[in-house]
């Protein structure tokens, strides 16, 4: 894993998420693709187990830092970290190589991380109103539609192509 490239990628994604992503929305200005979620799935399915754990928690940290939930951090660190690790474990049993499967993985991860973050927010305070349609369907769906097409450029940047990973496993 090239950690310097990873840090630059996460930083750029966090900045884009809070700025230019506001231009890409459907139906509602709050429904936009989640770049950090897409990266979470990418690293969960392409990294070694230990690297996947680190990458998942760091992406959660970046998500909480760039777009804090009700003024405190933590819900997305934990939800991204836990579900990113689980997806990595799952990927070792079920291969997620094809675009539709990658899209489905992003969609499901979007739902479970949104629900988990919302539930964790209850530990600290009364969180923001939870829009099931927006956070559990539209946002993950938009991320799932765009995400798989970002895997190639991200893989090129991280020098982590799918074929290289398959070769390493064999």
């Amino acid at each position, binding site marked *: 894993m090239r950690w310097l490239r990873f840090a630059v990628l996460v930083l750029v994604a966090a900045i884009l998420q809070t700025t230019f992503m506001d231009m890409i929305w459907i139906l509602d200005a709050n429904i936009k693709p989640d770049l950090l979620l897409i990266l979470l799935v990418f690293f969960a399915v392409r990294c070694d187990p*230990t690297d996947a754990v680190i990458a998942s928690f760091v992406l959660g940290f970046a998500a909480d830092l760039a777009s*804090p939930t*009700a003024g*405190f*951090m933590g819900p997305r*660190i934990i939800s991204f970290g836990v579900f990113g690790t689980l997806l990595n474990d799952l990927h070792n049993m079920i291969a997620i190589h094809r675009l539709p499967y990658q899209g489905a993985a992003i969609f499901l991860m979007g739902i479970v991380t949104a629900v988990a973050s919302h539930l964790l927010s209850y530990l600290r305070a009364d969180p923001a109103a939870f829009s099931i349609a927006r956070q559990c369907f539209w946002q993950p769906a938009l991320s799932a539609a765009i995400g798989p097409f970002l895997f190639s450029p991200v893989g090129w940047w991280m020098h982590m192509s799918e074929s290289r990973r398959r070769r390493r496993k064999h």
Partner: protein
Amino acid sequence: MTRHWGKTSKRMMFTYFVLGGLIFLFSPPRLTGQLQLAYARLFSWPLSVGRQVTVASRTTEAGHLGDYPRSMDAHRQLQERLAALEAHHRKLQNHLANREAQLEQAQNRIDELARLRSIPEWDRMSFQQAGIISVSGQGQSELMIDRGQDDGLAVGQYVLGDLSMIGVVAAVAAQTARVKLISDPMSRVPVRVAELDARGVMEGRGAGTAVISQVPARRQARPGDRVYALNAPGFPGIPIVAAEVVDSQRDPDNPLLWRIQVRAVCDVANLTRVAVVISER
């Protein structure tokens, strides 16, 4: 580095990170807020540039590069002019609402004290203009601004946008600050519904909306009625329009009281600058 991490098992690393996440979760918001402010300060340039581009893209039609027919160009110009006029109209409406509240207050003073203080209330305020670095939070209910402690900002100060009250300074660093909007679920602002002359506490509900619970009023609030933010520590003591009534219903627990749903009068998504009320002169 990877070799060093390789010595720690995946399970132990996962446990450490979960513990770290829990520490962050239960840390005081003041500490985590400092981290968020440091991030906003460190990357203020790309964040503010991105924000300006986003706002500009909302006010102009995508893809107009001079290749459209003349009629399309004229249409675009008219739409831009309409958008500018609508923004100006909204600003003037808020200004008018503020002035009406001040007039009413001044008339009450005349009646009660039989003397008139002719100092306009707005002149007693001192403002600090600030640019918006980013909009964050669930339901876009927080702002990062490019002014901080060095510019006289402090926690609790009211923040104005388009001449209406939009939120309160929640955390300050040396050169940046975080503003909690009135729609933030943690926001609690004392308010008065002008037409009912009833007071209450406005609680944010996200996505530009808020609720005033348990309002003692004889009649139902009508959609469009103005809601004014009342005195708060460090605030000069005059009402400033903050929201307008969307709907109202009787409180299910106590039918004598009302539950009023309101919407912020300022469209934060299109704001690029705000003003922070510093103190009385």
